[in-house]
């Protein structure tokens, strides 16, 4: 596997920030009530992770090991503030939707984790790519979580999309008189759905490992019989 393929695979699945590392649960649980909210926060997170990984990879020679964590936090917080202000000034309509989510990104420890574990030890291009892939891994899981919670909780999908694309509107999937399932919208529902997603990932991983073992056994049956 080439280095970039491995970075992508790690971000999307193997080291997925939510499913494997369980990082960034604070914004995850707070924002994943609808698909549109979840994906919006995810996209802002990708931007911040790419910027943070890029900046710290570029400055890594200047940062003494002993004070790396305060410096990382300083840089991440400054970048989030700059992104927040830039959104407010140049993309005001989008800011009205995303505005409340952007400061929340600082609370997402996945940003600090990737900076510490990857960007501080790797070159610019690899670090930026890692930020992007970790961000994409965050988006698809939070998006799925948001979609499930929205569907179960209020029977719609894409509700709130008109805030981003005024010509579109949410889709009522279940009948209009669906009473809603409150717990899916409330924080406990987020934990339930997240638990199911993690269980699903573990099941897939276990199955893949089992297949790998079976295949090895098939290719070298002598090794198995010799020990038996």
């Amino acid at each position, binding site marked *: 596997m080439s280095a970039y393929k491995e970075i992508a695979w790690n971000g999307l699945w193997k080291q997925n920030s939510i499913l494997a590392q369980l990082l960034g649960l604070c914004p995850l649980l707070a924002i994943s009530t*609808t698909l549109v909210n979840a994906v919006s926060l995810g996209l802002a997170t990708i931007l911040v992770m790419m910027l943070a990984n890029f900046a710290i990879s570029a400055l890594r020679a200047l*940062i003494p090991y002993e004070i790396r964590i305060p410096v990382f936090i300083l840089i991440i917080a400054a970048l989030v503030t700059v992104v927040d*202000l830039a959104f407010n000034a140049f993309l005001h309509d989008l800011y009205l939707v995303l505005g409340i989510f952007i400061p929340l990104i600082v609370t997402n420890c996945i940003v600090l984790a990737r900076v510490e574990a990857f960007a501080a030890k790797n070159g610019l291009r690899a670090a930026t790519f890692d930020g992007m892939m970790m961000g994409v891994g965050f988006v698809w899981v939070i998006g799925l979580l948001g979609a499930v919670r929205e569907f179960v909780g209020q029977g719609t999908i894409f509700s709130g999309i008109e805030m981003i694309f005024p010509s579109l509107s949410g889709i009522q999937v279940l009948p209009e008189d669906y009473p809603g399932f409150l717990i899916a919208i409330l924080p406990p529902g987020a934990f339930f759905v997240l638990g199911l997603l993690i269980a699903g990932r573990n099941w897939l991983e276990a199955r893949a490992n089992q297949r790998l073992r079976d295949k090895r056994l098939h290719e070298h049956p002598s090794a198995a019989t010799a020990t038996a």
Partner: protein
Amino acid sequence: MSNPLEIARRESSVLRISVRTAVIMLGFTLVFTALMAGTYKLTEPLVAASAAAEKLRLIGEVLPPRLHDNDVMADAIVLPPQKALGTDEDSRIWRARKAGQPVALVFEAAARDGYSGRIGLIAAVSADGRLLALRVTSHKETPGLGDYIDPKKDRNKARPWITQFNGLGLSEVPRDKWRVKKDGGRFDQMNGATISARAVTNASGRALAWVVENRDRLFALPANSRYEDQGAKQ
């Protein structure tokens, strides 16, 4: 090991490392604070312009433009913090007139007892004391649950919850009936999310009563002047 010269040298190197680390930390702090300050300065006029445009849009939402012919943004007075409006800093009251006659007052108010803190409101009250329209300008209510107080999030698009106040005055709904049904009042709330509706309903009732009571003074003050509380001396 116990050579005094050796110890002195080690101590000085520890000191040197500490100073070096502190200087680097200070350097990073200065550079990134400058970056933030620079961005703030650069974006400030744009942000202020967007905020003013946003305010004008909000005023337009509660006050139909055909009702007045004056420049509402220019005909404003400054209001010190008012308990009845729930404001804790200076706010503005915009005055709408047609042919010089008072038409409506537009003002910002807040409910402090939302489910997740402050709910910002903007309202227009007509000169004859009816609440023309009410809108939520900012809130942190639970998405998908309490956020129906914002018509953009309300799933009832035909008749959003917040429009039930439109056109009502204290003569139609007395002050003690200006509550949600759960509290024995006139206004609907959604089951499971009463707190958000109660906060908005109570805040709008308080604000309406205060504005109606002070209507004549609020219209009479010259533009850009400051409203002073009558009972300020106590």
